[in-house]
């Protein structure tokens, strides 16, 4: 099995390096094909591993020692257990699809080769992240995906907004990474190791306060990567990157790393309900918060991005209430339909010459039939309508929240479900149906390449059927994650389903109704609420005004006023004072003999005065 493990892990790296060789060469289809093939290889290995571990086995290997200093020993160790295998499956599946899709999507881009190099590098980092058997290895992947995300968001670096978004994403993530790093230090100094198994064994012996600190700091890391409030702004801006990137990184995989971390560290989190509750509450808050922003946004990709954010909130709720397997399950299904949604959006963008304003679209269904179908499937799944994948996972989350007596959370999530359904179909309606507004703006939409659509097929299929594998999933995952038994009556169970379905369908219905009639009136756009939501609660502005600008100004002050005018000037002042005192004291050296003689006299007089009036004790 080790071979499969290493194949799964290193195949993307090989592909990445191979593509990197051609990075500054003109487009070469080989890079796309090679990387996609290698990813397929990786996918196959992952599937093999998944099947292998499905029955409770575990593959654990140690490649080599990485860092060894003092008592700190960090190996390059990899473990494939059920959680990892699931993650690997998700990652490789989505990324294979994205790779193939990108061959078409990036067809005309001059940096075609570079794109594949980075994309594969991302997959490799993600694999390291999920496969590592220790926190440090996790951190490698963590930073690695951050790097790749930076490079891919800023892929079109000639665009100011893209490079800005890339840096924002990286720096935001870094803030969180600091928390994560501190968490790792805490783990090391208190558990003496960074290996998961060693650490988790000792959980029972450790103080509660300590565990709280550890989990809190680790969660700060997760907040950054999974773009939770208040570190969420980068995700929307990250949509500057090419759409396959958004699909892969900012929907399916990287952003879920935070969830993965919480799931992975579940022994720690289960031991501290306070932090778990916080995780869940924050998740619920973000779910609603993001959904609300998605309601009014006009940007095709940003809407999807907010929906991602919202769904991540769901996952955290699940993880927070202890239903780790549900979180993982939702993570998986979400990856499929969200990637599908994004890639569909990519098709639309392509057709619309990278126009993103959904109000400039409309009626595209005629031109882009298949895309419309795919995106609708994804939207339905996202809305959580039976029998698509989204239904199973989302419903479980609501159920878990309800069952753990967190009714407020449940309510929030329930409302959010309605909002989700609404904005999803708002998007579908505005893009594909209604008036053909694109004609006003002179676009000539066309359907994407056939093979790109075929590439999306697996995702579509998975988005539809993944939910039915719930039991297999549970069966597999129970080897590693706690499967809690809900003690809710069948009646409540069914009521919950019905209520949820109702609000989701209601949302869809409202959207369809409203937008088939031409949407809301202009007045609505002038209301405070609309403005608040449209400006993302003014949070980016606040960050810019109260953090970025003061930081820049403070830096300037530090440099110009403090470093140059105080610290350096002090040094120079000492030097010039000495020099000036030389200038002053050269007066002694007047060159006039009379003065020189008098100076001797002065010297003598001083000595005599000292002789007579200064008499130290002998």
């Amino acid at each position: 099995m080790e071979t499969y493990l290493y194949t799964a892990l290193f195949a993307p790296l090989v592909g990445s390096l191979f593509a990197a060789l051609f990075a500054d060469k003109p487009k070469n289809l080989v890079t796309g094909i090679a990387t996609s093939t290698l990813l397929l290889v990786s996918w196959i290995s992952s599937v093999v591993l998944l099947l292998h571990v499905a029955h409770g086995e575990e593959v654990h290997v140690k490649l080599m020692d990485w860092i060894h200093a003092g008592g700190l020993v960090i190996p390059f160790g990899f473990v494939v257990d059920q959680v990892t295998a699931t993650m690997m499956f998700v990652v490789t599946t989505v990324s294979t699809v994205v790779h193939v899709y990108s061959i078409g999507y990036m067809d005309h881009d001059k940096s075609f080769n570079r794109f594949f190099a980075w994309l594969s590098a991302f997959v490799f980092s993600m694999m390291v992240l999920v496969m590592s058997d220790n926190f440090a290895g996790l951190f490698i992947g963590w930073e690695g995906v951050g790097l790749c995300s930076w490079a891919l968001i800023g892929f079109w670096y000639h665009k100011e907004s893209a490079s800005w978004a890339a840096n924002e994403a990286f720096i935001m993530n870094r803030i969180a990474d600091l928390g994560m790093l501190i968490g790792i230090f805490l783990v090391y100094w208190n558990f003496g190791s960074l290996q998961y198994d060693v650490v988790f064994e000792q959980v029972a012996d450790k103080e509660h306060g300590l565990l709280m600190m550890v989990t809190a700091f680790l969660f700060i890391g997760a907040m950054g990567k999974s773009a939770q409030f208040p570190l969420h702004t980068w995700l929307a801006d990250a949509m500057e990157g090419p759409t396959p990137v958004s699909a892969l990184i900012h929907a399916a995989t990287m952003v879920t790393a935070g969830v993965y971390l919480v799931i992975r560290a579940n022994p720690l989190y289960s031991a501290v309900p306070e932090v778990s509750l916080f995780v869940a509450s924050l998740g619920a808050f973000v779910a609603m918060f993001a959904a609300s922003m998605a309601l009014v946004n006009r940007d095709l990709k940003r809407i999807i991005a907010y929906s991602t954010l919202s769904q991540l909130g769901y996952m955290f709720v699940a993880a927070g209430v202890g239903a780790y397997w549900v979180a993982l399950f939702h993570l998986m299904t979400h990856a499929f339909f969200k990637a599908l949604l994004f890639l569909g959006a990519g098709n639309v963008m392509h057709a619309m010459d990278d126009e993103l304003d959904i109000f400039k679209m409309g009626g595209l269904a005629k031109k882009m039939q298949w895309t419309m179908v795919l995106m609708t499937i994804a939207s339905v799944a996202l809305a959580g309508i039976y029998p698509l994948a989204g239904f199973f996972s989302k419903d479980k989350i609501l159920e878990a929240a309800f069952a753990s007596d967190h009714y407020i959370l449940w309510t929030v999530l329930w409302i959010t479900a309605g909002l989700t359904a609404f904005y999803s179909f708002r998007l579908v309606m505005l893009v594909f149906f209604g008036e053909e507004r694109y004609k006003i703006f002179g676009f000539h939409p066309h359907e994407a390449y056939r093979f790109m659509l075929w590439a999306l097929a697996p995702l579509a299929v998975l988005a539809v059927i993944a939910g039915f594998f719930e039991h297999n999933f549970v069966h597999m995952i129970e080897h590693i994650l706690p499967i809690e038994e809900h003690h809710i009556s069948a009646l409540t169970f069914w009521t919950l389903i019905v209520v949820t379905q109702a609000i989701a369908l209601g949302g869809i219905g409202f959207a369809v109704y409203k937008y088939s009639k031409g949407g809301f009136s202009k007045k609505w756009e002038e209301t405070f609420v609309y403005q608040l939501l449209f400006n993302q609660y003014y949070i980016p502005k606040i960050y810019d005004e109260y953090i970025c600008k003061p930081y820049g100004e403070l830096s300037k002050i530090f440099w110009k006023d403090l470093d140059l005018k105080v610290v350096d000037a002090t040094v120079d002042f000492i030097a010039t004072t000495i020099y000036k005192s030389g200038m002053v004291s050269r007066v002694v050296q007047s060159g006039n003999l009379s003065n020189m003689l008098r100076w001797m006299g002065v010297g003598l007089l001083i000595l005599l005065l000292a002789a007579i009036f200064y008499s130290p004790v002998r």
Partner: protein
Amino acid sequence: MDHILSVLVFFPAIAGLLGFVVSKESIRAYGLSVAAIEFLLSLWLWLSFDGSYPGFQFVEVLPLIPSFGINYYLGVDGISLFIVVLSTFITLIGLIALNVEKDLKNMIISLLFLEMTMVGVFVALDAIVFYVFWELSLVPMLYIIGAWGGNLRIYAAIKFFLYTFAGSLIMLVGMLVMAYLYYQATGVWSFSITEWHRLILPENYQIWLFVAFFIGLAIKVPMFPFHTWLPYAHGQAPTIGSVILAAVLLKMGTYGLVRLPLPMFPDASVYMIYPVAILSLIMIIYTAMVAYAQEDMKQVIAYSSISHMGVIVLGTFAMNPEGIAGSVFFMLSHGIVSGALFMLVGVIYDRRHTKLMSEFGGLAHVMPRYGTIMGIMVMASVGLPLTMSFVGEFLSLAGFYQVSHTMTILAGTSIILGAVYMLSLYKKSFFGEVTKEENKNLKDLNGKESMALWTLVLVTVWLGVYPKPVLEPINTSVESLVSFMHKKAITKEAKEVIKPKVIEREAE
């Protein structure tokens, strides 16, 4: 070979002297061959080094002023070995990428002399010999900055020289006091550092001496309020000067901290952890912010150097093997990475004769290979895992975490702030459209530059992925150093703070 260290020290100097004879046309080849031989010698030193033995190896002793206890005493251990290798390596790389036309001969000869002094500092085990090389290193550097630098070069060069010289003189007084105390204790004059290590002093003496040594070393590092010479020196120095200054000369300071005050004054070191840590924190955060405000690419990197040196100092004062080994490793990685960054800035400066970020933009379009390497090095500087810097930074911070949680969190902001200024540098210069006409036809890296830079990239990644061959000997020596300090410490607090290995920790 018993005298390999002497050979290592004096080979470049002798070669430098002979270099006067070599004709102007062939001097580059000459310099390269000498540097290459020197580098191979240092590699040989590494290969014949026994990584599992913590003490000093290849020791050479030759009396110089026996009546006063001054000996020509050389030796390497895991801590100094790699800095020696780094010195020879960076000199070689610097020479490969050297892009100077004016007075090339003088430049190469001074570089060779500089190499002698650098190696000398790191292998010296006699305080006076250490001091000799330490001071001597200023002279060629003064010349390099002053003769090939920018407009303010003379100011910068003098500032550099005077500042360091003043500091080291205070250190010299400290050394003399130390020798005297040693004489009082044993009746024998000795300037041997290893002998000094064995001398146990009362705490108040330790503190004063620590301060004396610390001032001298801190100026070189450069620690916070003493750092202002560095931006000038870097800003004005030619590329090769900055490279060596950042890569090796600054390391003298931090190396000195590990070699001198720590084992000599363990109690004072523990006593001073907080003041030093606060200075380091100011250094980390404040200079990172100042770096962000810079308009000149080179100044950004110069200030970033200071910021990173802060982490190194912090790691040194962690007083546990993790921190110290980490900081020693960070010295190496900082040497490679900042050296590479300065070299990269030099590349663009050679082409455009400006370093202002506002003059650039979109360089990634015009010079993709250059942009790639710069990107890698920027990321390495930011401390991305699997680059050398991460190992060092991680260990340094991890080590210091044991001393103070809050301070480590504050120090950890370096990974954020570092990203802030480095990425904004990268964005301003490399991203965006090419706006300036002059930038449109810039040539990408040439063969020399590529070779030098890719080598550095390879090393950065190699030691980031597999630091073991370097980290292990360092760790061996550092562990013995820390347990030595632990044993030597006289106060209870110091005994508590200085933590040898985990196992020993638990045994007590």
